[in-house]
């Protein structure tokens, strides 16, 4: 097979000691910045860009790519241990990950997440190796109407993933959608809810909202709790996922890999959607969906697998079409340009060594990350043994610093505090922040997509239904809406049978 020759040559490139070293440096940096909330891969790569000028192009991109997917691994750690999701795609992990940590099973959660991430990443690279050009062409069929349908579907799923009551989830999601409207209207330039402040002109950033509602809110809530009862630091039992845990998450990891790969190809919100969809799928398939949100291991395995798979497949638009899907990809685009290798449709044919070198380095990088994760899990879970009186202020400090680094703006620190108070109140009144944050992220995608679609359709709403992909998604959406009614009837029939444990 001629097709496989360049792939094999690519391994020759990666296995050069220099490239292995850059791969290692990349994933280590990635993992570290993933752990620090706020400082994302984009900012890090921007800072490291000048260093890459003097390096071979392949080595440079291998390192930068390593930072990108390494950060996905690191992000899990704070989501599970401290309830601090650093990126929109790890919000869903918080639900069950943090619940598991509270039960003293943080190690289980992190272990399964690491294994899931590894498998998801690897499956996605295999997909990238075999299908990249095909997938890229299909992704182009996703226009604004398809995004509109998908994000609407996502918002609907949001209401079902929270473990509070459904009404409360819907209310929280509604508030999230409203928050997404803050900022300068991207279609008319009119200011909405900015109160004449330029700080709000671009709307509210995801990081202050997530850090405030989840991280700070949780800390404030715990401070109050401590006055009622003495909270023993969580036990850190069984650092390793048991055979039973692995068996239980096997299906979730498999499905998460596929979902992540497919949705990750879509620029703009693909990774977030994939983690959300993967979680929702597991919750729907589960025999006892009520376990979700209270420490179901599949609830960690599915989104973590999916977001890593998505991180890998998000390279497809850049490497095969020359389109950077997000800020990190834009920087890699810049790095390639500087090296005299313009990323574009001809990259694969003109620079096969680079293309396959980078793709194959991801196999190695994922293995390195898995190896590193194992001892790291053991060390990181001990964070939970630290007394809250010490851990809480450190967490707050790191959170505030992290939020500041996103846009170097003091205003964002005030935002975190405001959202921290909101998060505290939400928890007190039994609302989940998850639906709010996810609806916020999807809301801005949806608004743009719907308005762009309507401009393209000339205001004709039926356009959404006559296009094959958006039509199908909308049909599925209607089916999901109708499902609770059907389920209700079914459950009444089999209510008695449902009691056995898994």
């Amino acid at each position: 097979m001629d097709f496989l020759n360049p792939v094999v040559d690519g391994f020759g490139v990666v296995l050069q000691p220099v490239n292995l070293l850059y791969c290692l440096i990349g994933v280590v940096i990635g993992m570290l910045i993933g752990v620090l909330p706020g400082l994302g891969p984009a900012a890090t790569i921007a800072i490291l860009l000048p260093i890459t000028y003097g390096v071979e192009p392949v080595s440079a991109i291998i390192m930068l790519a390593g930072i990108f997917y390494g950060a996905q691994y690191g992000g899990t750690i704070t989501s599970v241990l401290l309830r601090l999701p650093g990126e929109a795609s790890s919000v869903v992990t918080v639900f069950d990950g943090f619940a598991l940590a509270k039960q003293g099973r943080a190690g289980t959660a992190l272990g399964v997440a690491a294994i899931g991430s590894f498998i998801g990443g690897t499956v996605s690279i295999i997909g990238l190796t075999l299908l990249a050009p095909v997938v890229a062409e299909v992704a182009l069929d996703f226009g604004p109407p398809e995004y509109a349908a998908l994000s609407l579907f996502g918002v609907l799923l949001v209401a079902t993933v929270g473990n509070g009551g459904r009404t409360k989830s819907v209310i929280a999601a509604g508030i999230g959608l409203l928050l997404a409207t803050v900022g300068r209207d991207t279609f008319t330039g009119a200011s909405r809810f900015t109160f004449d402040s330029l700080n709000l002109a671009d709307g509210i950033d995801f990081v202050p909202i997530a850090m405030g509602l989840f991280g700070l809110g949780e800390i404030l809530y715990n401070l109050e709790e401590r006055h009622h009862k003495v909270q023993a630091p969580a036990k850190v039992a069984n650092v390793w996922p048991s055979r039973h845990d692995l068996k239980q998450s096997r299906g979730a990891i498999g499905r998460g890999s596929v979902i992540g790969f497919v949705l990750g190809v879509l620029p703009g919100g693909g990774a977030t959607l994939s983690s959300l969809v993967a979680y929702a799928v597991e919750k729907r398939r589960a025999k006892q969906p009520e376990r979700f949100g209270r420490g179901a291991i599949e609830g960690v395995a599915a989104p973590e697998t999916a977001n890593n798979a998505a991180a890998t497949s998000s390279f497809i638009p850049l490497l095969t079409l020359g389109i950077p899907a997000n800020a990190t990809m834009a920087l890699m685009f810049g790095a390639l340009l500087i090296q005299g290798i313009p990323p574009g449709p001809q990259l694969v044919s003109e620079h096969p060594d680079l293309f396959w070198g980078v793709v194959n380095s991801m196999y190695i990088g994922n293995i390195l990350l898995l190896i590193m994760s194992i001892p790291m899990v053991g060390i990181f879970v001990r964070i939970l043994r630290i007394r809250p009186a010490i851990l809480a202020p450190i967490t707050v400090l790191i959170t505030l610093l992290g939020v500041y680094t996103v846009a170097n703006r003091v205003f964002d620190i005030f935002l975190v505090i405001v959202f921290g108070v909101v998060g505290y109140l939400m928890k007190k009144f039994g609302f989940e922040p998850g639906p709010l944050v996810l609806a916020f992220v999807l809301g801005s995608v949806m608004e743009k997509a719907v308005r762009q679609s309507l401009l393209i359709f000339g205001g004709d709403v039926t356009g959404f239904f006559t296009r094959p992909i958006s039509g199908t998604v909308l049909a599925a959406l209607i089916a999901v809406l109708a499902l609770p009614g059907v389920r209700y009837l079914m459950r009444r029939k089999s209510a008695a049978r449902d009691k056995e444990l898994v």
Partner: protein
Amino acid sequence: MKFTQMSRRVLVMAASGVTATVVLTACGGVKTTSSGGEGAYPTGNIEMSVGASPGGSTDLITRAIAQGLSKELGVSVPVVNKPGANGALNAKELQSAKADGYKIAVQNASLFTITPLAVSANEAVKLDDFDLIGGISQDDYVLIAPVASGYKTIADLKKTGKNIKYGTTGVGTGAQLASALTFKQAGIESTDVPFDGGAPALTALLGSQVDVATIQVGDSIEQIKARKVVPLAVFSADRIKFLPDVPTAKEQGYDVVVSQYRFLTAPKGTPDDVKTKIGDAAKKTFATDTYKKFNDAHCLTPIEVTPDEVKKILDEYATKYKAQLDQYGISLAAKK
């Protein structure tokens, strides 16, 4: 590798966090004293702020210049991203910074010439509030269509007789202005579909979600070379060297000249000798092969002119755009 003491672990964690931050913010430090101080300028770090997120053209240009300035002036030149409001947030901050030459920024012409036409007056920033150090480069727009469409010129679009949906890089950008002016002058019925920057607009065009799109040359040159998209016109005054075979809109009979243009600014009242020193260092940077290569890679045309010329160019643009919008009754902001 077993830590037994809790406090030590906390310390290690905190230390690794702090080290990472320090390393990341102060890379390539030559001399890292704090800003200000006595003696000949510069005695400390010069901060270059960017009114956009990492990865965009303005960010990359700033980083390329910062690297050169650092080498020429022998001090660290950290780049700090302060995204928000198309750069207005950063501009306002620069405006109120101490005018001592330790805080400078690359700014976009569109912020002063086009954005004010689309947003409310109190959000607009004025050129007079800054000292200019010198011009940098011009970033041109190109009107592109999918190959399959068969369009070759702007006239072809008119022949279709249908409502042309055009993608742009956003409201209040040169892409929007250039397209709106062209279609109005050509009498082509059209709908503006704004995207968040060049990449999403290009994606939509490649998938034929929109009929044509106007984006920066640097964002589309590879797709043009690969014959995935066809360039219909560039919006520069003369043809550009990166696309020598593509006629300008002007050649095709439309009076539309719109480019993005970037220049170096300092807070108002910065001493002349300081400005000269920065300006000279910038010129030396521009003359290096590394920087020239950078310009070519990003399809930027150098316009490394004096502050007075920068002002002249910007004033001309601002007046002309406004007059043209009035003449053709176009509004970039509220539609219909």
